[in-house]
């Protein structure tokens, strides 16, 4: 779906492409290279068009049924995004191992942070999905995908031993027991 205006090369110049002389200034809306332009211009002669002029007819841009399908598709893409990442994450998890060093920690942080971020900006995503008819289903899928992602991150933390799930993790908070008896003495002096 290319725009017809873009091809025409709404080129504007004070002089013609009269040769290799440098122009004082030039405005070019075309991204095509000079040679092609030169070729085409050569074909068209020295005619000058106003900016934005297209010599082809403008196509009908009214909303069609195929576009709606496309929006739907796009929205499903968004909703399924987190789920699609899970296999990739699993692979990364497997590769990074359970040792505690800078890279696995970074991976885990990233894995945990992305779903959280996504969950925090849930309303924005919902707005994005507004145009879809299956908005709620897609939202749910999106949510579930993110939750799965964070669950995966938590599982990774667990397998790395970063979660305080053992009694040893709370050992430092145990206060020394209070002493009930006072005792002393020793060898007879």
């Amino acid at each position, binding site marked *: 779906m290319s725009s017809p205006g873009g091809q025409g090369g709404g080129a504007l110049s004070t002089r013609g492409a009269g040769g290799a002389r440098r122009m004082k200034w030039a405005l070019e809306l075309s991204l095509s290279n000079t040679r092609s332009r030169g070729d085409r211009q050569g074909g068209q002669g020295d005619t000058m068009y106003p900016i934005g002029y297209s010599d082809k007819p403008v196509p009908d841009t009214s909303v069609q049924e195929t576009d709606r399908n496309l929006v739907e598709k796009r929205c499903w893409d968004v909703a399924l995004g987190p789920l699609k990442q899970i296999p990739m994450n699993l692979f990364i998890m497997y590769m990074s191992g359970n040792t505690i060093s800078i890279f696995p920690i970074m991976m885990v942080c990233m894995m945990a942070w992305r779903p959280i971020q996504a969950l925090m900006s849930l309303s924005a995503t919902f707005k994005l999905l507004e145009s879809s008819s299956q908005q709620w289903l897609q939202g749910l899928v999106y949510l579930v995908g993110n939750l799965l992602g964070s669950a995966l991150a938590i599982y990774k933390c667990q397998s790395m031993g970063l979660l305080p799930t053992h*009694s040893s993790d709370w*050992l430092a908070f145990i206060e*020394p027991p209070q002493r*009930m*008896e*006072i005792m*002393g*003495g*020793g060898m007879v*002096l």
Partner: protein
Amino acid sequence: NMSALVCRVVAFFCLLRASAAVFEDQVGKFDWRQQFVGNVRFAAFDAHSQASKKLLVATEKNIFASVNSRTGELFWRHVDKTGQDGQIDAMLVHGQDAVLVVGNGRLLRSWETNIGGLNWEVVMDTGSFQTAQLIGLADIVKFVAVLKKSAISLHYLSNGHQKWVENLPDSDTVQYQTVYSSGNGDVFVLGLVPHSHIVVVAYNIEDGEIMKQVSVEAPWITSLDSSCAVVGSAVLLCVDPVSSSLYTLQLNAEGRAEFVHIPLQSLDLEAEAGFHPVVIATQPHPARVPLKEFFLQLGPERFILLQLKDGAIAPLRDFNPANLVAFATTGEKTVAAVMSPKNETVSYFSHACSINLFSADTGRRLLDTTVTYNLDPNGGKLNRLFVLAFLKKDDSVGYRALVQTEDFALTFLQQPGRVVWVREEALADVVTMEMVDLPLTGTQAELEGEFGKKADGLLAMVLKRLSSQLILLQAWIGHLWKLFYDARKPRSHVKNEVTIETLARDEFNLQKMMVMVTASGKLFGIDSKSGTILWKHYLQNVQPNAAFKLMVQRTTAHFPHPPQCTLLIKDKDTGLGSLHVFNPIFGKKSHIALPTLPRPIQQSLLLPIMDQDYTKVLMLIDDQYKVTAFPSTKNVLQQLQEMASSIFFYLVDSSQGTLSGFRLRKDLSTELMWEVVIPAEVQKITLVKGKRANEHVHSQGRVMGDRSVLYKYLNPNLLAVVTESTDTHPERSFIGVFLIDGVTGRIIHEAVQRKARGPVHLVHSENWVVYEYWNTKSRRNEFSVLEQYEGTELYNSSVFSSLDRPHPPQVLQQSYIFPSPINTLEATLTEKGITSRHLLVGLPSGAILSLPKMFLDPRRPEVVSEQSREENLIPYAPEMPIRTEWFINYNQTVSRVKGIYTAPSGLESTCLVVAYGLDIYQTRVFPSKQFDVLKDDYDYMLISSVLLGLFFATMISKRLAEVKLLNRAWR
């Protein structure tokens, strides 16, 4: 093989982490050592050259040392064996040689006095030593005569070879005590039969042939040692206290010899009643005749200078009162130094003394020779006087004096009364010590007070805060001003001396007051940072074998109440105890009313109960198990009544083999709760150790490999009792280790180590006991560690009561070979107990080893597993290494280390350590490295310059970026 490699790697990293040596530039930064020699028995000035500044001393601690007489520091020191084997019996100094008789006449040694090298040593025949004497011939000192009970031997001074040895006639009846020679070829040996006669034997110096042997009637004689002396040309002069008269005897008289009787009354003299008169004579040169003049001491404070001339005795001068006298010789001149109380009306207890020189041959006082000396009121009485005389340029006699006092202090004096140095030799025998926090400065106290007091209105508090801030500001400005003022002065003058006035706690409470109790009964307060003695206090009338127990009843934390220490002194003979209560910062005796202690004291117990003035209560238990509380105010008694049912104490009687536990009753009597009897004929209780009261345990358990917790059994009432078998045969000897709960008497654990022998050294802390013993089977020293665990569940996590502990703990044990015997063992201690623990081991070599507790862990696995690696357990290896980098005192060896004291500092990482024995060494240890302070060599310059550089770079690049953006926008 892989696992072995892994083991090694793990062990290597553990070792890397545990290394704790100091760097070269840290030497002496926070540690110091002081060397001592003990109470001086013999002292001599090295007077062979005018410029010599050496003082030679031989001491009761079997040490021969040379002291720099200008500074009081040691030039060199030789530490011999303790006990009888190393005892120095005699010291003879001639020129550069010092001859010592050691070990009851077993060894004869000659030392070179300049550098302390051994010239020669000879082993002598057995026999109980009597005396030794330098013998000269023709004006040259050539020989040493050693007199034993039954023989006399003559040795060459140059090489120690024996010239001759002769048996003494009738040595089974005659007690030979004195040797005399005046350098004319004869050696006289004098002996006596008490209340009968004196025997004089003359030997030929060349071949030991008996030239003459006479026996002279003397029915009055009891001893030759102090009441007789050879005076003038071979005249034996004796004093008889009974008939109060003098006797003279010409030793080399031809024909029949007889004592000449001279009554003291004929000289207008009289001995004080009950006093045994003493003759003090001098022989300036061993090859010449003794001086004609001598002192006769007739009373504790009366000395008379007498002269023997042509058989007649004439008094030259009467010194009354006089404390001490001494002869000193320089060149051809001999002078008498007399120390007398300055204020003549107040005699014995006067604290100002003066020393004067008198010409020995006339008794005339020499001009300008007075030295005034102020006796320390907290010191002991005068004991001995040593004088070094020298000729000045104008041919007059100058001198320096060394005064020895009863409290083992040596004071070196110079004219006209300057104390050059003082050596406190009592510190060579520290018995017990404590470290006390220094008081806060005024400003700190002001701030503390603000938090301590009750709030009285918002405005008042604001005002108070403002005023204290103002005081702080004032102090800070004062400090700045001082800095500025000092900066202008040359550097050498700035050196701030530590005095009692400037004492204040530092930021991290690293500087403390060391209160040391010595065996002689002298107490010292020493600044832990510099080692300066800040106060001393001599307790008179303390028996030499008394038992001491030092307790801190009130710390410095209770401003404005002064800190208070209490020393319990128990007389071994009578069993009676006495208390000395003092302020540990200033050493002043407190005037608190002391309890009367009519009955012998068995033990004491410091309770955590406090009186209104924050004094902890001290309980004293007498031999009828009655309790005396000190202080015993109404408040205290009431508290005691309330708490009586939870106060327990135990007593261990080693001679009976009983351990007994008592509980306090409301009327301060006690009831017996339990008794454990260990038959004294089979094994003897040698050691009982509880845990230290000020110990904190941070972690209540240990994390296992599977991240579960093994909880520690932290029984504060647990006692470790060590017994040793009475049978010392290597096959049958054993030691027993019992863990007994001190409240219930329950035996928690019992282990008998067969084929093991003491002495056992033990440390009991947290949930572990570490002890060291001698394995008689393998003939090596071994360490053993016992650890107690509750298991993976805590029985009661909030309260510990010995009366409610149904489950016995799990006890784990492991042993290791240690390559050296040890002298003492102690564990590091920190404020909160977070830092890992190290054991401090005092080795006989004088090194102090800081051994990580990690190596003494009964959970060290023999086979490495994933879990043990997870736990950082070092694989078990039977040999315990000694690494030289673990010596916390690098080359500052502590001779005969007897005890190590550890105290926490304000920094969790730092533990203060004092090792004492013959020397005192103070340092700090960091068992887990200094995790809470920046390192000494932290590069402040680099960090701050990098920071500043980065800051400026950011500023500049920001500006540049802005300019560039603008430019781009314009393009």
